[in-house]
């Protein structure tokens, strides 16, 4: 006999479980199958074995997009985390107007991605943009941000850091939870600001750093909207390639989208999706497994 609690549990979970089956489990299976087929959505798929995976590993554009994406993952993730933590740390003191500052830091993070890109394309305009005008005043000739392949990704990283307010709010809540007594006893031991931050603040909030790090990594592995907008704007390279100057904005998710919905090569795109799945799983797993070296789960 099935226990009553089991039935209740199943009932309460059923909307989610049905959704999971329809929109996650089935698609995972189907995309695995598609990844071994030649499929353009108009004719039924034909089996091609590992051809699509061979394509993924041999195609220059895929490697280019992997390099571009890893660049964002490696720099944008930590920079956004550090900016978020820095802002939170600055706010975590009793100053008048704290909530006003907090609001001002937070607002950019709720500006929709498409609008963010648009604003920054204008702010970064090489001639009359805010940043290059400011650089001009101090005698620096600013780069041609979104048209120079060296500077396109740093520009996007800057955009990401501008939106670090969401991370900041979570870090701020965590910082406010660090027990005062810990700091007080450290002060008695003569610890300075830096040592208190390194020895008390960071270890105490390390579980949240881990969580934010993983969410950040996953976000940047799937980096799409902002780059898509910028890439279809920069006139070098037609809209169809969506790659930006010298393919410097050809990110993995953008190439995957192009293969699937512009060129209708569902097999290629599905193989790419599975490679992405494996990469993100491995990275997440490695971070989890090595996290016990720096994450402390202290009961307080």
């Amino acid at each position, binding site marked *: 006999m099935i226990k009553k609690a089991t039935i209740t549990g199943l009932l309460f979970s059923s*909307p989610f479980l049905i959704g999971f089956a329809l929109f996650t489990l089935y698609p995972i299976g189907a995309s695995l199958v598609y990844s071994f087929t030649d499929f353009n959505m108009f004719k039924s798929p034909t089996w091609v074995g590992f051809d699509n995976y061979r394509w993924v590993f041999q195609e220059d554009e895929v490697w280019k997009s992997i390099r571009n994406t890893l660049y964002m993952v490696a720099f944008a993730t930590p920079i956004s985390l550090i900016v978020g933590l820095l802002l939170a740390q600055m706010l975590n003191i009793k100053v008048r107007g704290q909530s006003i500052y907090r609001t001002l830091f937070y607002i950019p993070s709720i*500006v*929709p991605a498409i*609008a963010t890109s648009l*604003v920054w394309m204008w702010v970064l305009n090489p001639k009359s943009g805010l940043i290059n005008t400011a650089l001009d005043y101090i005698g620096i000739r600013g780069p041609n941000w979104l048209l120079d392949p060296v500077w396109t990704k740093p520009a996007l990283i800057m955009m990401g850091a501008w939106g670090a307010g969401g991370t900041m709010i979570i870090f701020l809540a965590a910082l406010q939870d660090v027990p005062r007594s810990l700091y007080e006893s450290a002060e008695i031991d003569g610890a300075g600001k830096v040592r208190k931050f390194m020895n008390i603040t960071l270890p105490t909030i390390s579980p949240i750093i881990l969580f934010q790090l993983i969410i950040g990594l996953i976000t940047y592995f*799937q980096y799409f909207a902002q780059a898509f907008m910028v890439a279809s704007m920069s006139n070098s390279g037609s809209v169809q390639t969506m790659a930006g100057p010298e393919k410097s904005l050809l990110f993995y998710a953008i190439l995957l989208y192009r293969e699937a919905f512009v060129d209708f090569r569902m097999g290629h795109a599905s193989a790419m*999706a599975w490679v992405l*799945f494996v990469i993100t799983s491995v990275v997440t797993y490695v971070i989890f497994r090595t996290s016990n070296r720096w994450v402390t789960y202290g009961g307080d």
Partner: protein
Amino acid sequence: MSSATSAFSRRFRTGGQYRRFLSHVLLTAFSFVFVTPILWLLVTSIKSDKDLYAIPPVFFPKHPRWENYADVFKVIDFPGMTWNTFLVSALSVIGVLISAPLVAYACSHIEWRGKNIVFAIVIGTLLLPYQVTMIPTYIIWGKLGLIGTYVPLVLPAFLSAGAGYYIFMLRQFFMTLPVSLVQAAKIDGASEMRIYLQILLPLCKPIIATVGVLLFLATWSDFLGPLLYLNNEKDYTLSLGLYSFMQTHYIMWEKLMAAAAMFTVPIIVLFFFAQKQLIEGIKLTGIKG
């Protein structure tokens, strides 16, 4: 002894004042950096095309050109797109707020065999890239003839699909509620559904409001979903509308900025109303630890 204490406290106090002043300077400088792009957006939206590239640059135009906004209205159906975006966002919020707390409850206060399994699935969906499910899901909707409608954007929300993060938030909050509360009600013979509806949900208003606001912000800004599923301009959401507007008007920055301002300002206004809720709610959840 007492003189030493007072000397110490005096030093401490002046040190505190100095430090406070310094942090105001820092905070103001950073605020300036974070707010300026938005101000730049707003002032550009009322510039004439002459002011746009003026040298030296003008910050605030002498003759504000409000017609830029009217021009946007002439080119794109702004009220229509705002309504579309609102509709999709509101329905998604309703869908998730109906279905997500149910599963969050099943993962926290119901003692059953699947409790941890379901929670593990929720976390698993958080880590799954959208790209893996994107293509088969698109093909399903295609076969059902629903591409070009709002169904693919809204219906999954009612089954909490893609809502892993919000389920996680809700579940973490539910875990902070005392078990005794639920047990006492059970001893009184209340059914799980009654406990859920009459005891749990009323206690969860703050966190539910927070989830609602976060989700509203996320769907309001969503780009990839509408890009995949909407193909008639009259159905476009603001993200998609702004994107296509940009493709046709990409040198008319003053009009682009006017459109971007109309897209962004409502969401900032919403944030001002929901601010306290949002921040309190984030403090309440276990997301922070």
